[in-house]
């Protein structure tokens, strides 16, 4: 493997002018929410640092994270993959296959021991000795543990790697397990979402490359710059929420007027993501803008929280589909009738023993 070129060298080799390069750095700074005074820092990093080797593993997943990633516009994924990082292993994107591909994994692990970033899409299933996900003839769990051992940091792409997602939904027959529960001794950056927003994915990588450190994380290990607020906090339909104007059904007048989707189950108020600000497909739209509530795909266990079309989540422990209000009303009616019966008996008893007490 040749010595890694810097980002700037690669760009110049591709015929990009310095002016365009500087413009690119400014745009990246803006995308990361950084002030103009940090642009020189990005420029310097791009000019001097060798590209960071990234090993991208795929466990139990649907490749939607990769699909999202390759649609990144700011920065263009072409620039990320070909220039900024050195994506040395990604079995869905790489040209080589079979033993050839697996050999690269060993080579990078040895050459850049402790200096490569491990990106994980999907998660390892732990039941049946990991037989539910086999990569190169071996359980994915083994590959993950092996590659994680000498990684500098781990990026958990998507809700699968971060929280478990659909394959970990009840009853989770393969015991699909999020990465942070299997690898406990490495810094892990969770980038949840099903899939995560493309610009969020490339933004996290750009930040790590530029500043040579992992972004500031919240309590659940998600980068604060993209996951510190709920969809609800920046939703353009928020004024309708505060006004008390709701879509009651998907074809009603409220839906046509673009009212708040809270009553038809929008999970925006409980979901941390950047959809309402960054949006999707080059900032074109996001679910709420297209008239459908947020399903909360970047939240832990979102498959098991009941209907995507109901505001309150079901409480599965009650066996049937019931939410907190249904449980509460039933209990209140039960207690109410017990009290009525009790009061009747009390009155009777009192009549029997009139004047005893």
């Amino acid at each position, binding site marked *: 493997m040749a010595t890694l070129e810097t980002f700037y060298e690669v760009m110049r080799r591709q015929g990009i002018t310095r002016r365009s390069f500087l413009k690119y750095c400014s745009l990246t700074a803006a995308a990361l929410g950084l002030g103009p005074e940090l642009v020189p820092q990005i420029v310097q990093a791009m000019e001097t640092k060798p590209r960071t080797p990234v090993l991208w593993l795929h466990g139990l997943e649907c490749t939607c994270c990769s699909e999202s990633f390759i649609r990144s516009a700011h920065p263009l994924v072409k620039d990320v993959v070909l220039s900024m990082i050195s994506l040395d292993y990604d079995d869905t994107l790489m040209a080589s296959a079979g033993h050839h591909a697996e050999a690269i994994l060993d080579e990078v692990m040895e050459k850049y021991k402790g200096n490569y970033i491990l990106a994980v899409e999907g998660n390892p299933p732990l039941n049946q000795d990991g037989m539910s996900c086999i990569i190169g003839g071996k359980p994915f769990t083994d590959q993950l543990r092996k590659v994680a051992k000498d990684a500098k940091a781990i990026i958990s792409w998507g809700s699968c790697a971060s929280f478990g997602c659909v394959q970990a939904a009840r009853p989770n027959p393969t015991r699909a397990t999020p990465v942070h529960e299997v690898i406990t001794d490495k810094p892990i950056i969770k980038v949840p979402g099903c899939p995560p927003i493309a610009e969020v994915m490339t933004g996290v990588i750009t930040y790590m490359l530029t500043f040579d450190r992992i972004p500031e994380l*919240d*309590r*659940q290990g998600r980068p*604060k710059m993209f996951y*510190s*607020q*709920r969809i609800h*906090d920046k939703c353009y339909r928020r*004024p*309708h*929420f*505060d*006004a*008390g*104007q*709701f879509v*009651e059904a998907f074809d009603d007048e*409220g839906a046509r007027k673009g*009212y708040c989707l*809270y*009553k038809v189950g929008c*999970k925006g*108020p*409980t*979901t*941390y993501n950047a959809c309402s600000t960054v949006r999707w497909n080059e900032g074109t739209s996001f679910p709420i803008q297209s008239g459908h509530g947020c399903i*909360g795909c970047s*939240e*832990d*266990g*979102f498959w098991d*929280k009941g209907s995507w079309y109901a*505001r*309150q*989540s079901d*409480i599965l422990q009650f066996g049937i589909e019931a*939410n*907190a*209000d249904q*449980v*509460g009303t039933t*209990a*209140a009616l039960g*207690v*109410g009738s017990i*009290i009525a019966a*009790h*009061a009747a*008996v*009390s009155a009777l*008893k*009192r009549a029997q*023993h009139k004047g*005893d*007490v």
Partner: protein
Amino acid sequence: MAPLDDAKPVAVPADDPSAASAAGGRFLKAIYVYEVPVRVWHWVNALAILVLSVTGYLIANPLPSQPGEASANFLMGYIRFAHFAAAYIFAVGFIGRLYWAFAGNHHARQLFRFPFWDRHWWGELFLEARWYLFLERKPKLYVGHNPLAQFAMFWVIAVGSVFMIVTGFALYSEGAGQGSWQDRLFGWVIPLFGQSMDVHTWHHLGMWAILLFVIVHIYAAVREDIMSRQSIISTMISGVRTFKDAEAPADEEQERPVKRTLPAG
């Protein structure tokens, strides 16, 4: 320990002896039980619970849509404001009540005590339960709360309030934003439960637990007022517990020896 003079009989049986003897040895005795802060807290708290439950229910199940422009309406905003304002009163009141458990008389402490290791207390709790199941002819007399009431109050009001305050402020911190004091103090609750949706569900169930308590509490208070041997409802207004007959209250001798005047006849 509690000062010994805090439960002075304020009305010694000076009532007319003929009535007492006619009823077979009845006499009236009154003890000052609930001090002013406890009574004020009780009613403020009751009002806060009412506002919190109604607005809380309406936040989860909003009213039908308002007509007109969004800029001309703020219904959900007002409902949420009422919820948050009542929540602050509820929380501050609870802290004040907790303070009074230390500053006030020993009855003020009862709400926060759960005498798990006291066999005698458990015995009286089951006795009280048997009275409610019509298996006992007579309940015991209590100056403070009976053990069954204390049990329910400890778990639903003392523990339940803490639960609602902690989960409530955790949810509030989501709007207040990361780095706010609500987030720093209570933000850890959300990952503890898994995610925000679960905290909402539990906060909701907490409301129903408190409402069930309220239903039973009001029924029991009214029923006790009529059927038991001491005053209940008026006590939370005047602070004075009156007794309908002559026996010693069950919780009195453990606390202090009291000089009682026996009825003349």
